[in-house]
């Protein structure tokens, strides 16, 4: 009887209050372990500063000597660790455009660098300089990329909604001798793009 009375006067019974305390105590006890989840991701610590364009043969790319309608694989950002630098996420197709697409000018406008990670299922695409191709092609599902803009024009990647239809890119600087450098990079869909995700075309 008395219990019923107390229920009317107090909205919270003693039992419910205890349960609440128990739940609260449990939550507080395990709260410090939530940020421990940061153990799992392993974010890259490489600094995104200006870096020379180093070709696979070890020399620095020079816009006066680099052949027209040709591509090489470059690494950015470099960590100095041979193993980590071998990673596909750090690989970029460094392309000098063919003549008809404006690759003859000896300035940075004839050069492009796009992430080699295809935006569809993260295979590695490659630039094909052959007559009739002159485009980036992914061997996995056939996505094709326009070398001028980095936007997919055929295949599954072209059907993905922006920003996932345009490859992330690097911008260049050059010194008076024509040696090329990669400008500092900001990862973001409105900046240089996100590797494996894409970039909005401005």
């Amino acid at each position: 009887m008395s219990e019923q009375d107390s229920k009317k006067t107090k909205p919270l019974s003693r039992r419910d209050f205890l349960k609440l305390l128990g739940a609260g105590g449990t939550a507080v006890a395990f709260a410090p372990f939530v940020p421990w989840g940061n153990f799992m991701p392993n974010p890259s610590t490489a600094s995104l500063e200006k870096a020379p364009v180093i070709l696979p043969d070890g020399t620095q790319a020079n816009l006066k000597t680099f052949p027209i309608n040709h591509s090489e694989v470059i690494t950015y950002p470099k960590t100095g660790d041979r193993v980590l630098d071998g990673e596909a996420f750090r690989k970029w197709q460094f392309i000098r455009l063919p003549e008809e697409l404006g690759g003859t000018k000896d300035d940075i406008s004839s050069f492009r660098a796009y992430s080699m990670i295809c935006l569809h299922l993260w295979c590695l695409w490659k630039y094909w300089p052959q007559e009739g191709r002159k485009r980036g092609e992914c061997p996995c599902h056939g996505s094709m990329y326009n070398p001028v803009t980095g936007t997919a024009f055929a295949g599954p990647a072209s059907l993905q909604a922006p920003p996932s239809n345009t490859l992330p890119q690097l911008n260049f600087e050059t010194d008076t001798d024509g040696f090329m450098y990669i400008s500092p990079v900001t990862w973001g869909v409105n900046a240089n793009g996100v590797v494996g995700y894409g970039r909005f075309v401005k």
Partner: protein
Amino acid sequence: MAVSLSRRTGTVAFINWIWDGLDRTIFTSIKFSFPARFVSPFGFLGMLTFITFIILGVSGALLMFYYEPIIDRAWDSVAFINDEVPFGFHIRNIHYHGSNAMVLLAILHMYYQFFSGRYKIRNEILWVTGIILGTVTILEAFTGYDIIFSERAELAISIAASLTNSIPIAGPTIRDAMFGSGFHDFVLRFYAQHVFILPVVMLGLMAVHFPRFLVFDVPMVMAISGAILITGGVFPIDLGFKFEPTVPPGITVPEWYLTGLYAFLRTQYDKFVTGVLWPGLFILSLLLVPFIDRYKKFSWKDRPIITAFGITGIAQIMVTTYWGFYIPSDTTIPLVERLVIDPVYLYSVMIIMVPMSFGFSYMMIHLAKDAERKAKLAKDKGPKKVAKIELSEKWINWVIVALIAFMVFLNIAAYNAALTGMNNLSIFFAGLILIVFAGLFHVYRYGMNQANIPPPPPAPLQQEKLKALAEQPASTQMKELPDSTAAKSQKELPKNAPKETAPQIKAESSGHSLKRESNLGTSDVKKL
């Protein structure tokens, strides 16, 4: 001699003490039976799957001694295992083909349970855990072939990571947490998942999934192991090309259990829908089958819609599996045209297969029922004889001796092949040895059964009957024996009749109550 065997010596007492002590463990609730005669392997495909799991555990643990899960060393370490380490080729091939065997056995196991309606009668939990276990098995196999880090493995990893990344909202976080941020992490973490996390999950699921009745059939286990080795010898697995980030890979397709999924990915449709949602839907529908199936009967013939549902699934899996593999070899066609599967074409074929499979299933059910009815009608008229191979004690011994001699020869051949560097021949012979052992064990247990059957009591009244039997032309039972022996044993039969008739006239005693005991397994020792 009999005395020393029957007395409990120190060692035997110790073993018995352990055996009795097991009464207090979890193992008492599991009833192991070691069949004393041939039983259809369809009934214990799950046990065979578990055996391949053990084989994979052992061979995988051995590979761990040499494998290095680092992107630029993974492929080289596998190449070292394959080419340099003594018998590394063997272990790697056992591990690779064992994984295929395990996936295949798990799929067969599932479909056998599906069509025989075993997921009913409160077996729903077994079924559901089995489906999850099967999914984890495929993930385990998938992570395994990824960490070689060949070109194909790299593409497989990239597809797995990007599919995870494509899950709405939580995807990138899951990918970051589970796989890490780059390929260096992917390889290392796929390795951690392959050798520890997923196997532990599987063991946990197995603890729930194991039924209380287990059949351990030595010949079939040996035959499966031998088949894995023989496949390794005939189709030794290659290393693929080492992945070089500066050299984009060529066209590759995944392992056979994933090409079905790959066909859907190749339709250009959204990667989350085709790569995550469709397989998820397939797994979900299998999970729900026992709750959808409201038929009161078990046989596939009595559950037409469920049977047709299963047949549809199998037909679609087979078609997409082939389709996923198929890439036109004409290199003049642009890559995108070779690789992309027209979604309208693929999905309309998938839809057309539904009525086709339903029609096929109903036709098969109709034919099977018709055949059943006819068999019932003809039951009284037709011959009742079942073809049997009946061997006398002497011949059982000779067969076993011959098989042992053959195994000795194969041992020499296998070792010689390994010495001369013919690794695949060596693993082939090793597999053959296991298969021969399977046969030997079967003949052995058959002989033991025969020896267990007590000779029928001497019955002088039977003499006439036996004589009549002996004078018959070679009966169907004798056909397997060489002619001369058959004739000889026929002649000898009347003389030795009271002692040695048992094997020859087994058909007569088939209803004998003593004969039933020969089917008891070792586990029944406890009961007796």
